């Protein structure tokens, strides 16, 4: 009894490893928006030799790394309102133009976090419901969910209480309908395709049946399902 629980808590990718794994799938030359939280750690894991243009919805394309301490310019910030930098080839624009980029389908990938994802690709990631907080905040989540060519979600496979985050139908307020294309979790990579959820990669410690047991929706196993692996990282 006592030796199974700790083991169950240890297996699976760390949050940084999930970000690393997603970063490997972002092709050279992509235009990408990274949501707050786990997605924002992706830039440090982008493979060398790829030039990827990061979009920040507050009016910046070509976002660079954070500035060195003391070099902060509070008129050059990211969507998380923290100081950032601009890389060669970057540009500034106003909010309507910035969201024209998002809503007009010009971003290759939007990477978001999630509270819940349904088997149809519905996403809930902005509100825990009317009772959870007095003040709801949505920001650009709904625009990014609706507008990008591909929506990737980075999330723990289950909530802290062990309940599945991938479900038949979301019961939390929706961010967007049928918008998610791919889900990266600590346990698996799952694609949302027309017919439902297809498991592409699973960590070596678990079987497809294990993943099914931790998922609240029907899954199909990809014919060429691979092992989900990532290097070890020290948390910053």
């Amino acid at each position, binding site marked *: 009894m006592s030796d199974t629980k700790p083991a169950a808590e240890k297996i699976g990718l760390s949050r940084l490893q999930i970000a690393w794994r997603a970063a490997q799938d972002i092709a050279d030359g992509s235009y990408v928006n990274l949501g707050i939280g786990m997605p924002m750690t992706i830039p440090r894991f982008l493979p060398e030799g790829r030039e990827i243009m990061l979009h920040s919805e507050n009016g910046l394309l070509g976002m660079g790394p954070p500035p060195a301490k003391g070099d902060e310019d*509070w008129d050059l910030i990211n969507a998380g*309102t923290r100081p950032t930098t601009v890389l060669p080839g970057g540009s*500034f*624009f106003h909010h309507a133009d910035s969201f024209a980029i998002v809503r007009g389908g010009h971003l290759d990938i939007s990477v978001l976090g999630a509270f819940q994802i349904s088997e149809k690709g519905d996403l809930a990631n902005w509100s825990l419901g009317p009772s959870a907080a007095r*003040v709801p905040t*949505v920001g650009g989540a709904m625009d990014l969910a609706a507008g990008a060519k591909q929506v990737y979600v980075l999330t723990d496979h289950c909530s802290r209480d062990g309940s599945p985050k991938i479900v038949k139908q979301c019961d939390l*307020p929706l961010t*967007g309908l049928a918008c998610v294309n791919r889900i990266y979790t600590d346990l698996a990579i799952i694609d949302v395709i027309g017919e439902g959820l297809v498991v592409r990669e699973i960590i070596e410690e678990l079987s497809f049946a294990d993943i099914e047991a931790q998922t609240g929706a029907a899954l199909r196993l990809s014919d060429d399902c691979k092992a989900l692996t990532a290097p070890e990282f020290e948390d910053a």
Partner: protein
Amino acid sequence: MIDKRVADLAAAVAGIEDGATVLVGGFGDAGVPNDLVQALVEQGAKELTLVGNGAISEVVGHGRLIAEGRVRKFIASFPKGRGSKLFEPGDASESVELEIVPQGTLAERIRAAGAGIPGFYTATAFGTPLAEGKPTMEFDGNQFVLERAIQADVALIKAKTADRWGNLAYTGTARNFNPIMAMAAKRTIAQVSEIIDPDPLDPEYIVTPGIFVERVVAVADDLREEGRQ
């Protein structure tokens, strides 16, 4: 002669009336016209409908107006930013009516007002609680929500440089909502770091043409929250 310059912040915000709909520019700490907001607090207008991305603080900007009890309704995408002490139980802001709008829809609704478009369709928020009660329409097999323009009486905005014609240029991500808010209000008031004179801004590099601006006031040492200069 066209000369949009006014002498000081009090002159800049003169005439803003109780009950006005006021757009306030900025995102995070960038491009927020904190000095104009402070002047508006001193001017006294109340019962305002405030429109902006959100309040990141109760000390300056949007949050200052809310904390001072001047706001009846707040139309925002992220009303309570990181670090803001507003909207806590028992707070004066508790009675403020909130309208939560997706950030891109907020920007487009503001731009629409400036462009003479009373309504437009968007995929954003379709099927979510934020589209409840709004008309929808199908185009080419997909569903869209009808969103309305946000008409405003006043826009308080911030830019980097102006000339006497009210032309404006910005810096970095301090541009954000400011250029579209300038278009959307009956009266646009801009605080800028510098007014150049007598030479105008280069016509190729102007982001906001002066036709959208009624008053400009120079504030060299602008108000910022501590540590965010």
